[in-house]
Structure formats: C-alpha cells, structure tokens
C-alpha cells in the first residue's frame, strides 16, 4: 500500500509543479562540464563550422609616450596601418567586414569614435563598413575582440575586426570636472578614484610582494622582450609605421619608419632598478621601473566564422574559446587576473594545467607577481616574450596586442602549445580573461565517434 501511495505522490507532483521545487535540486546545480577522462571538455573540443576563429592578428610597434617614435603621430595614423595590414595580408575584401570594434580608453569618447571611423577610411575600408569603440579600461582591446566574437556567434555578421588604440601622448590620464561628493558614502566608490599606483602598493602590502620580487620580475620582462626582439620574434606581428618625428631640441621634422618597440631596456638589472625611488608612497615598492610603461600603440585582430575562413582558404591562427570579465575590490584592482583566469578557463571546460601559454598584462610587477603566485602558474609559461613593463601598456590597445603576441607565439611553438590565455587587471577593480586555442588542433570528437561497423557486445546479436 505504501508503494501505491508513493506512486501516487510522484505522479501528483507532475501535476503540481510548484511542489516540485521543494526538492530544490536546481539551487545547488549550475551548468557544467564534468570530469571525463583526464580533462573534461578537452575531449570534446573539436572543429565546428560555427567556431569563431582568428585569421590574422597584428599590432603597431609600441613606443614610449611623449618621448618615443610615435609621439608626433596622430592616433588614427597608428591604427590605420594596422587595419590596412589585416586586409592586405589576408586579401579579405574589406567590404565583407561586418563591423570594426576598437577598444580605446583615455581619449574623449565621441572624438575617438570619429578618429576611428576616419582611420578606417585611411585604411581603405568602404563607407559601408561600420565601426564603434568600446571602453572597459585596460581590457578594452580584449573586450573588443570578445565583442566581435560574440556578435559572430550571435549571427550578426560573419567577419569582424576587434582592435585597440591608445595614444597616451595625446591623451594623458586625467579626471575632468569635479568629483561627486557622494563618493565618500561608499568606500568602494571612493576607491575607484585611487591612482593605479596606490592600488599596486595596496596589493604589494596586503599580499606581501617584496620590492626585490617586483624588480626581478621587471628585469625578467625586459630580458625576455629584448631576446624576443633580437630573435626577430615580433617581426610577424608588428606592422611598420611610416611617420614623422620632430626633434624636441631643434624642431626639425624628419620621416621615419618605426619597426620595433622602443621601451625595452636589454641591460636593466636588479641593482639599477633598486636605486629607483617609489613613486606613489614614500615607504612603497612601486617604482617607474617595475610598473608598465606609458605607451602609444594599436593592435587589430581579424575574426570570422570557421566555415567562412575555410571557404576563403584562410589560415586559422587560433580559435576564440571563452571570455570572462569579473569584478574585484577597486582598492586592489590588480588581483583581477587571479579571479578572471579561472573563470574563463572553467567556462572553456579546462583546467589551469591545460593552458600552455599565458599573456598576463604587467600593469605593475606587484599585481603580476601576486597573480602568478596565487594561481600557482609556471613562470616559464607566462609572458615568454616580455610584458607591459618592457614593451609598454597602451591601455586600450593592450588586449589586441596580446592576441597578436600570444597567437604568433603559439604558432611558433607548434602543436604542443594548444591553449593560451590572455588576461589583465582593470582599473576600478575588475579583471578580464579569454581562452584561445590553436586553430589546427582539433581532436576527434571522443563521445561523438561514428560507428562504422557494429561492435556487438554479444555474439548472437546481428
């Protein structure tokens, strides 16, 4: 009889949907890949026609703001050659590009949007191709790439460009107008106004990152960047820029072609850096030497649907897998990557160990070292060609720059290097990260294997 009562109850629950939420199983569950074999979705990653792939990623040389080779170049003249190169190197018909999204941070919004539109014309795009800007502070370039990937995935268009542009010469960091006095009511709002260097000091202080560790990281960054430049590793990704430069003393103007990053100091030593004074706090540890450089530069990434790329016979540099942006305490905004990277990697169904290469933006050595230690990453896998402390950090362009650097390095490393991650911290307390995969390494779909012949478990079946 009890059995009959139970059956009745189960069937009645089907008719009383409200009562079934008593089970409340869904509260503890979220959509997730489960462990399957050695590493979850790893098995299931495969080539699908609707994957968003990167067919080209390039950048301008990154040059020191106000003193570097691009100091007398208009911002649109930094972006235009990079956009143009994407078209020239791939022979894509520019009219087929569905949208261009440019990450850019410091310049006044509307003016920069106009400059980008003009840059597209200089680059040879027809009037029919739209363009817009996006600003998620230091991750704007990566956000632009993610936005384009999302739009392609959504079916808005099949081909798009995610780019980034920053001229810190023309647009220094500054606050315009007065600050709302209400800001005092909420600590976190107030902390949004902290100079970035102070947040770096906070990270160093709170998590015990020493001056020595920071200086060491800066020296490493310079050493690796110098080695990469000397070995010609950046040649594939850098688009030379033909421009003019004015001699500050004589006022003479001359034409130059900029082909290399000019902020790298191959001879930097820990001893030299140790002499520098802290900039933001007397007893602090953040110096000009172990912070990212103030830089001019641009980057651009051409994305399309895999099926379109195959049809056009394009080389597939990488696949855009996942993107995650997260929020953290604004007072220690530098910890962003330590939160964002696990989020993006999990969304891709991977484990941190599956990632073969990282580009983590070195906004400050303090936060960079913290994130590396917090996630327990192998230093040999991070910023193998140097980072922002040596090459520079043109805020809005950094994300796109990292895509170019990461994917070209993955290409050089071959099939052993399958997954790459880009991440950066974001002023006002956020972090962003994206997972990329090599274009040519797709497994056989493990649980989607075609059954060619029947492999019967018993002998009498047919």
């Amino acid at each position, binding site marked *: 009889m009890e059995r009959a009562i139970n059956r009745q109850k*189960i*069937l009645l*629950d*089907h008719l009383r949907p409200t009562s079934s939420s008593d*089970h409340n199983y*869904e509260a503890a569950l979220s959509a*997730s890949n489960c462990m399957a074999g050695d590493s979850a979705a790893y098995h299931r990653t495969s080539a699908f026609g609707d994957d968003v792939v990167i067919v080209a990623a390039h950048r301008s040389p990154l040059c020191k703001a106000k003193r570097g080779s691009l100091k007398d170049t208009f911002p649109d003249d930094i972006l235009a050659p990079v956009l143009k190169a994407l078209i020239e190197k791939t022979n894509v018909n520019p009219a087929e590009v569905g949208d261009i999204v440019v990450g850019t941070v410091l310049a006044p919004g509307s003016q920069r949007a106009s400059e980008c539109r003009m840059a597209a014309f200089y680059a040879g795009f027809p009037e029919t191709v739209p363009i817009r800007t996006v600003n998620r502070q230091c991750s704007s370039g990566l956000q632009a790439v993610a936005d384009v990937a999302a739009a392609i995935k959504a079916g808005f268009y099949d081909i798009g460009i995610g780019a980034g542009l920053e001229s810190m010469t023309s647009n220094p960091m500054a606050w315009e107008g007065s600050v709302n006095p209400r800001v005092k009511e909420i600590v976190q709002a107030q902390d949004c106004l902290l100079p970035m260097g102070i947040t770096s000091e906070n990270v160093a202080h709170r998590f015990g990152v020493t001056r020595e560790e920071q200086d060491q990281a800066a020296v490493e960054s310079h050493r690796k960047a110098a080695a990469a430049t000397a070995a010609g590793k950046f040649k594939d990704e850098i688009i030379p820029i033909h421009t003019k430069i004015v001699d500050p003393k004589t006022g003479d103007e001359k034409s130059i072609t900029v082909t290399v990053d000019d902020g790298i100091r191959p001879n930097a030593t820990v001893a030299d850096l140790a002499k520098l004074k802290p900039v933001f706090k007397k007893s602090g540890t953040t110096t000009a030497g172990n912070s990212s450089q103030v830089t001019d530069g641009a980057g651009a990434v051409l994305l399309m649907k895999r099926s379109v790329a195959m049809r056009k016979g394009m080389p597939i540099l990488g696949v855009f897998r996942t993107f995650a942006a997260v929020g953290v305490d604004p007072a220690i905004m530098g910890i962003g990557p330590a939160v964002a990277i696990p989020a993006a990697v999990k969304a891709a169904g991977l484990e941190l160990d599956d990632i073969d290469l990282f580009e983590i933006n070195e906004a400050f050595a303090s936060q960079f070292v913290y994130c590396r230690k917090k996630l327990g990453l192998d230093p040999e896998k991070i910023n193998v060609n140097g980072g922002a402390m040596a090459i520079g950090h043109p805020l809005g362009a950094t994300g796109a720059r990292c895509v170019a650097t990461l994917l070209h390095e993955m290409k050089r490393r071959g099939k052993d290097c399958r997954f790459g991650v880009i991440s950066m911290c974001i002023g006002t307390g956020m972090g962003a990260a994206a997972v990329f995969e090599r274009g040519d390494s797709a497994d056989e779909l493990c649980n989607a*294997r075609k059954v060619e012949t029947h*492999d019967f*478990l018993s002998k009498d079946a047919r």
Partner: protein
Amino acid sequence: MPVFKTPFNGYAVKFSPFYEHRLAVATAQNFGILGNGRLHILDLSPSPSPTPVTELAFFDTADGIYDIAWSESHDNLLVAAVADGSLKLYDLSLPPPQNPSRSLSEHTREVHAVDWNPTRRDSFISGSWDDTVKLWTVDRPTSVRTFKEHAYCVYSVAWNPRHADVFASASGDCTVRVWDVREPGSTMIIPGHEHEILSCDWNKYDECLLATGSVDKTVRVWDVRSYRTPIAVLAGHGYAVRKVKCSPHRRNMVMSCSYDMTVCMWDFMVEDALIGKYDHHTEFAVGIDMSVLVEGLLASTGWDEMAYVWQHGTDPRAT
C-alpha cells in the same frame, strides 16, 4: 484510422523497427498505481478492413508496465519496464508459456524507462525511480553497469542515435545528464528546467541536439555543445509534458504528449513552433511514437485506455 481499446490504462506505445504494421502497447491497471500490467502486440491491416487492428499476442505482468522498447537486432524481441522494478524480455517467436524469456530484477523501485541501443544493438538501458540508470546486454543475466548520480527519479533514458556509447537521462532532480559508458561519471549536466524533467530524446539528424519535456509545461531543445541556454523553448502544453520524441524523418520536428491530454507536433526552428495539436485523448496522454518505416505515421496511448495510430495531418478518431 486504427484505434485499439486496452483493458488497462495506456503507458507506452512503440512501433516495431522491423515491421511497419506492428506495434506494442504497454498498459497498467488503475493508472499504474496498483494492480497488474499487460503488454499488447498489435498488427495493423495493410488495407481498409473491418478489423483495422488485430492483437497478435498479449502478456500479463504482476505489476504495471511503464515502458517498452523493441530490440534493434531481433524482430521478435522486446523489453518491458515493469513497476515492480524488473525488466522483462519477451520473445514473440517462443510459445506463450515461455515468456517472459528473462526477467531482470535489480532496480529497487519502479522502472520507468527503457531504451534499446540503436547502434550497438545488443544492449539497452533502463531508468528507474530508484534514481539509477542501468546498462544491460541481452546475453547477461545481470546489469553491466549502474549509473548513479541523479538525486531523484529517472524518468527517461535515450541513446544517442549516432554514438554507440553516449546516452542521456532525464530526472526529477531537474537535470538532464549526458553519459558516455566509457567514462566513470556523467560527461555533462544540464539543469534544463526549473521543474522535474520527465522526458528526453536525441535529434536523429544532428547528434548534438537534445529535446526535453518537463513539468514546467515546456519542451526545450538543447545543443549539447553550448547548453547554457536552450536553442528553443516550445510552450503550448497546459500541463506537464510527459514525453518528447524527435522525428525519424524530419530534422526539426518534435512530438510531445502531456497531462493536458493533447499530443503536439512542433517545428523547433520556426517562430510559430506548434504545427499540430491532437486532442483525441480524453485522459492524460502518456505514450507516443513515430514510425521509422512509414513517414508521418504516429501512435499515442493514454490513461483513457485507448491506443491510436494515425497519419500526421489526419484526425486520429476518424475511422
């Protein structure tokens, strides 16, 4: 169109994968709550005749039968999911006293679903209210494996039509799980509905698509490669959706039946997804099937003790 009156309440109906005129109907006394069960094997007449349906055989069980599946390798073999927790194999070529040819009693509660593997044709799976799914082969007296992860009744199990090792299970714990029998645990958890999920079925043309039916009155279609949001939410049933079935002939067609007593046909790729609604049942419609051998031939059964077979687009009651 053929109509068959069953003495007990209908629970499931399945066309034979070998003979276009043959189908099986599973029934249970007193709405499956208390009493016996009976499995009917029916033959349809090829041309209009005074007796459009003849009963080839029937088998009685000591408890209600909740589901049935035809063997994919032997035309005379089928397996019944019985409410007493057993799975019973019937061989139509054997004389009646020798049936059931085998009874597999391992589930500790009602077995609610059974599905025969269409690609590796000697195995089948069963889903039970004891929260487990079990894998069986015809030549073994005991189950090969038990899959225990669901936290509540498993109502439905379905093999992937293309991949011999992959199946999905739908449960009252509000999740659908995708399993690979070579893996130790489920390979995917899809918390597909806010309420109990009563049914699931794979698309027969796209091995990544999965349809689910729930107490929340909707049918949802999922792409298992990006399962955070459904591809389609098909709303139209007035009560819990009891079963969903993907068409063997048209990629985008899904059939469903519900406690609202109707059987619905859907095209999940168009905006007005509901392409047909049949209200021939006068009690809960709980069993449906689509013929693999005859395009558009549908069957349904329900608690009104009726089993209907009809061509899509025609009235099931028209005789």
